């Protein structure tokens, strides 16, 4: 193993300090006994207890979770379908236009997306609530799913689908039995991407949410305007923990499966 030079070590330290010091401070202060956010008064888990008593936060968290699961699932189905048609549909009329249009929401300012959705919901007389947030999140996250899935489809060996057809599958069976299992990792990462986008979205949710439904980011944001409370630190720490566990698990799983793949291939060559 090569040792780091002093220059590399310094850059590494500075880079990581820049990224993680804010979060570290937040985690430390979530265990603060004092009600004053920035005054350290000893270690305590008091705010975690208070958080669990706070109905408003808990119901916002529950709403956020429901919205994220629903919208990312719908977005994954729609985004995968869109990607499949754009990559596999051949050169149908308007293909370039459609593929441009599917990527446009990626670069569209969220304020504009939110505003236009708000106008639409008012226009068709839809009461704002969980349903409208789900619709709005589906709209903007399906293009992310579509980008992820289509990049996988581009490198997908088309003869696999042809082989399935050749062996007697209908086009739908070929998709369900061959294409989908093979692109599943991309579909799953598209779902995860849509899920996290929905979890932390503040702008679009604040346009499309109503009094009946508040998501966690909106709740956090509005309570911060009344002053930062240690409860929010505790909540954020929990969120950071969940995300960390998720990321670590995902990378461990993919690392192990790629190691297994390499070992298998070496064994096949030896035989």
């Amino acid at each position: 193993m090569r040792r780091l030079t002093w220059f590399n070590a310094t850059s590494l330290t500075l880079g990581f300090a820049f990224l993680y010091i804010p979060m570290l401070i937040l985690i430390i202060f979530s265990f603060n006994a004092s009600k004053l956010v920035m005054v350290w008064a000893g270690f305590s888990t008091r705010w975690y207890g208070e958080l669990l008593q706070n109905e408003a936060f808990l119901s916002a968290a529950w709403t956020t979770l429901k919205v994220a699961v629903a919208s990312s699932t719908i977005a994954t189905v729609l985004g995968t379908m869109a990607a499949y048609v754009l990559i596999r549909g051949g050169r149908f009329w308007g293909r370039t236009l459609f593929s441009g249009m599917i990527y446009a929401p990626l670069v569209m300012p969220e304020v504009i997306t939110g505003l236009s959705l708000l106008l639409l919901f008012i226009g068709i007389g839809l009461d704002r609530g969980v349903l409208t947030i789900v619709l709005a999140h589906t709209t903007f996250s399906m293009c992310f799913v579509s980008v992820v899935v289509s990049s996988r489809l581009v490198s997908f060996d088309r003869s696999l689908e042809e082989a399935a057809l050749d062996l007697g599958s209908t086009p739908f069976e070929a998709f369900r039995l061959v294409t989908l299992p093979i692109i599943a990792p991309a579909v799953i990462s598209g779902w995860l991407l849509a899920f996290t986008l929905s979890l932390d979205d503040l702008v679009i949710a604040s346009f499309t949410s109503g009094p009946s439904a508040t998501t966690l980011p909106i709740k956090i944001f509005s309570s911060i305007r009344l002053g930062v409370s240690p409860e929010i630190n505790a909540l954020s720490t929990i969120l950071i923990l969940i995300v960390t566990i998720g990321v670590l698990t995902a990378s461990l799983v993919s690392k192990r499966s790629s190691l297994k793949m390499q070992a298998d291939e070496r064994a096949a060559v030896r035989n």
Partner: protein
Amino acid sequence: MAQTVFEPWNDPDQEPLIQFRNVTKRFGDFTAIDNLSLDIFEREFFALLGPSGCGKTTMMRMLAGFEGVSEGAIYLSGKDIAPVPPNKRAVNMMFQSYALFPHLSVWDNIAFGLKRDRLPKKAIGDRVSEMLQLTRLEKFAHRKPHQISGGQRQRVALARSLAKAPKLLLLDEPLGALDKKLRQDTQFELMDIQEKTGTTFVIVTHDQEEAMTVASRVAVMDEGRLIQVDTPAQIYESPNSLYVADFIGDVNIIEGHAKKSGDGYDITFAEGQPVLHAKTSRDLGSAGKCYLAIRPEKVTVSAEKPEGRTNLVKGTILDIAYLGNLSTYHVKLASGQIIKAQTANTRRIARRDLTWEDEVWLSWTETAAVVLEV
């Protein structure tokens, strides 16, 4: 016991399995297949041979149903297959990349087509076992494609495409990914399996040796047209054109003027060189210009002037290529042509007394060369 020779193409009563009738295929402005007609018979091992871009793969994809026909029609057992989608055709294909399903085991790959036919479990199991046995893959049934070697993958692909007992099996460069030694073994394995199953095989290849080895008939293609369709021996010994003579194997081409004489032609090819004579039943018409194609192994090299040979020319050795089993001499004639002559090294220890710059005599019989039109 006299065996009947397998030559359905010479039997006017035989109904061809596949008929291409004036088939044309265009991709935009590009004509991939140009007004092509061809019959392929049951139990044949038919090879489509040609350089890349000659349209051989397009023909195969039209048979499989992945490409439509621009003009003309293709008949399978007398029925036009244009309206039949690929999944309803009694035609299976073995892909160049093998296209094995990476998420399924060898067993499930082979069973894939059978399951689509909704066969009972027992029948599927029996058929898969039969296929595993045929391709000697029993030990690997539960491995995934990435856990087996390239040669084994090739056999899985073959087993999978044969499992449904298709009327016609298409093989797209089936041995392209294998190394030379394995390829030769697999060629004989393919022929063996074809004979056992009695399936009609159509193979696409750019490797002429492969086509000659496995096929009952070979179609040499160029630019979307069939140049010659014949048995490997006929293609090699009686090419119908310069293109075929040149494409298959090594050949000396001599350009000259032909004059009808007896049952063949007298050919003058250069000032000061003797007149050559070649027997042929082909009629060149009035045009005097022609090509004479002679395979190097049919040219005899000798240090002394041989007696009584019809075609005899003198030259000096320019180069000797020793290939182990054969030696090829490049001999330059006084008029500038270079003629290749090949001799088999049948003895391990022999005097090879011919060397560079030696004057030698080249001779061949009057039936050794093929007269071709310009």
